[in-house]
């Protein structure tokens, strides 16, 4: 890890997070991609960097650690697949709404003003009120 | 036997990629290339051309000269205190319309700084070339004609009897048919 790469990773995370907190799915996708890039930088800098770990090309003692590379590669591939799925969501959203905006959940709307125990309270209020008049 | 030529090219590519001319590589190249050609056969219409090696060499020479001269010109322009360009578009109608000639021409045009293809007519008989320095329109036209000749010879193209591109264009596309200067 070098200061420069730590900065790069932090910067990618920062910008990625900024984009992630927006409402347009395309921006969110870009944000996630940036986050992934940041994470990959962290991965490849998590161990020794050096020459390409290909045996026979010489300099085995200066090899870069191959394992984080393999891990990062796997992560890249997985993110590629998932990004495609996210894009499909954006595409579908466009077909349905002509936008890729992430809408708020309708089920959560108005919960704060709803009266959930109305029935229970009202009915029992009635019973007690009857008792009073008896 | 078109596919044989293609196979040879593919095997050469294979050997270039492996970087070793071993028998194993040749054999595997032939196998892989053949498999590819079987899996994705060539289509009949467009892949009909023959390379004329001498003409190819002439074309390459022309391209190299063009490359150097246009690079020099471009460099001069870029480094001038106030870059002064004289852009314009020329429509060039091919003598012998052919998709391959068009492709080759546009590629060469693309490779030389100062020229670029803006469009090709649907019938593949007219190309529209954007010149950055269109000081001399006649010279520009001449160079395009020369390029067409060299290209046509290099791939030894025959006018295609069955192709729609053989017919002369009914009308030139409207917006791009004349040189324009800014």
């Amino acid at each position, binding site marked *: 890890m070098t200061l420069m790469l730590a900065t790069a990773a932090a910067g990618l995370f920062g910008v990625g997070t900024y984009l*992630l907190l927006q409402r347009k799915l395309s921006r969110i996708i870009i944000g*996630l991609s940036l986050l992934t890039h940041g*994470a990959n930088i*962290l991965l490849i800098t*998590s*161990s020794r960097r050096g020459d390409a770990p290909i045996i026979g090309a010489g300099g085995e003692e200066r090899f870069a650690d191959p394992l984080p590379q393999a891990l990062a590669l796997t992560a890249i591939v997985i993110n590629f697949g*998932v990004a495609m799925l996210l894009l499909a969501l954006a595409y579908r959203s466009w077909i349905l709404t002509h936008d890729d905006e992430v809408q708020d*959940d309708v089920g959560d709307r108005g919960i704060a003003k*709803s009266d*959930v125990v109305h029935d229970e309270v009202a009915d029992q209020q009635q019973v007690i009120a009857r008792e009073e008049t008896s | 036997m078109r596919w044989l030529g293609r196979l040879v090219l593919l095997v050469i590519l294979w050997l270039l990629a492996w970087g070793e001319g071993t028998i194993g590589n040749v054999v595997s190249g032939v196998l892989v290339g053949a498999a590819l050609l079987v899996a994705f056969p060539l289509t009949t219409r467009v892949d009909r051309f023959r390379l004329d090696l001498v003409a190819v060499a002439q074309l390459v020479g022309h391209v190299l000269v063009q490359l150097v001269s246009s690079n020099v010109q471009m460099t001069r322009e870029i480094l001038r205190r106030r870059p002064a360009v004289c852009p314009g578009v020329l429509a060039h109608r091919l003598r012998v319309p052919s998709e391959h000639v068009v492709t080759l021409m546009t590629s060469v045009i693309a490779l030389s700084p100062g020229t670029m293809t803006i469009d090709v007519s649907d019938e593949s008989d007219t190309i529209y070339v954007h010149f950055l320095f269109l000081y001399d329109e006649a010279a520009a036209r001449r160079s395009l004609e020369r390029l067409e000749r060299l290209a046509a010879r290099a791939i030894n193209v025959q006018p295609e009897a069955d192709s729609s591109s053989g017919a002369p264009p009914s009308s030139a596309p409207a917006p791009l048919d004349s040189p324009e200067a800014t």
Partner: protein
Amino acid sequence: MSWLVPLPIVLPLVGAAVSVLVGRSRSAQRVVGISVLATLVVVAVALLVEVDTNGTVVTEAGGWAGPMGITLVADRFAAILLVVAELTLFAVLVYAIGEPGAERNHVGFQSAYLVLAAGVAASFLTGDLFNLFVAFEMMLTASYVLLTLGGRHDQVRSGMTYVVISLIASTLFVTALAFVYSTTGTVNMADLAGRLEELPPGIRSALAVLLLVVFGIKAAIFPLFFWLPDSYPTAPSPITAVFAGLLTKVGVYAIVRTQLLLFPEETRPATLLLVLAACTMVVGVLGAIAQDDIRRILSFTIVSQIGYMIMGLGFFTVAAVAAVVFSIVHHIVVKTALFMIGGLVDHAAGSSRLSRIGGMVRTTPFLATLFLVSALSLAGIPPLSGFVSKFALIDAGFADRQYAVVATSIVVSLLTLFAMTRIWMGAFWSPPEEATVAPPPPNRSGGPVLMVVPTTVLVLCSLGVAAAAGPIYALSERAAEDLMDRHAYVAEVLGP
């Protein structure tokens, strides 16, 4: 018997491939799916028996010994969860096939479902932290697909929330892995158990908390759970059922596994866990009370129940961890069953909103019974399995003198009971709303046979968990002892 260990991962993968290839035939796909999962139920049971009698089974993928290669480790904890998971997956698959209109299921449904099964199994069995990430991704990607198959508007909307939040978790996971590798140079969990111990306390705690956050998102603990109630209810009911039952518990599994195995005692974030657990329980159950839709109520109770498990982990005693293991088993079965019942209600009444339905205790008395049993179990009413789970947690908590959080959990269980009675009264007792009188259900059992039978089987399983609570708790206790003994795990995997 070590060849049994990879089967729950590999078989569904082969099945998924075959399923993709035979995509033209729904019935062929179903045969593949059913036979793979049926086999896996047997395999999982065999594995559990093997593990419980002869101890942890370790196998090395590719024959490469850990810590270099990926090891698959079936200990009691993993094997128990595997059995429950495969059983649930199997039951839900039957339910999904029995759902009317299942023949219109997308060609990708069965493949994605099998991949989900593989991902869940791999999450339980892997002994490698990076492989756990990959397993999670398998499971999650499949879940994204299953959640959005059909592409309805609400599915897309909730799919966005679900996928984006999950991807944040995945990215955090990779980040955590980078830090872990950076500090220790290994990703094998057994190896990590030894190496993390030597780290300076600051970075070690940071890693522990980071992993807690990563899995906490999946497990849906406060304040990381908000995505769950927005996304689960929109999926088709079988999908919701399997998500509700399994996926969060995979997160809990990962929390339990990583916190107990990877980190030494002095690193364990006990107080943090207890605070989060209390908040999770309370906010979750309040959310459940505030809802009108059965699936949303049930979704919030998932969150609330996760709080119980996290609380148990926060005690960090053998008894508490045993209680957590038992709770997970109980909760997977009951929650899946409840969501399946919710689907049946939806199917029979034409809606899952309490304000629109009613009177089902008469129209579908069998369904009412199934619901009542499951709901009371969830609320921890004795002698159902939920009670054993609740009692075990309370017992362990009081023994650990954690009175405040245990008291909270007791109050929450009352509120859970209230939330369940709201469903009972709204859907089953109250007269149906005239405006939305649904067509009478096809039969008294409340739905298509292939939907009702697996639901009933799961409810019976939950009763079985209660009846066999003794042996199951004893097993959980043995599993908890394994879990608390980090060095035994390390010795099993890496050799003494």
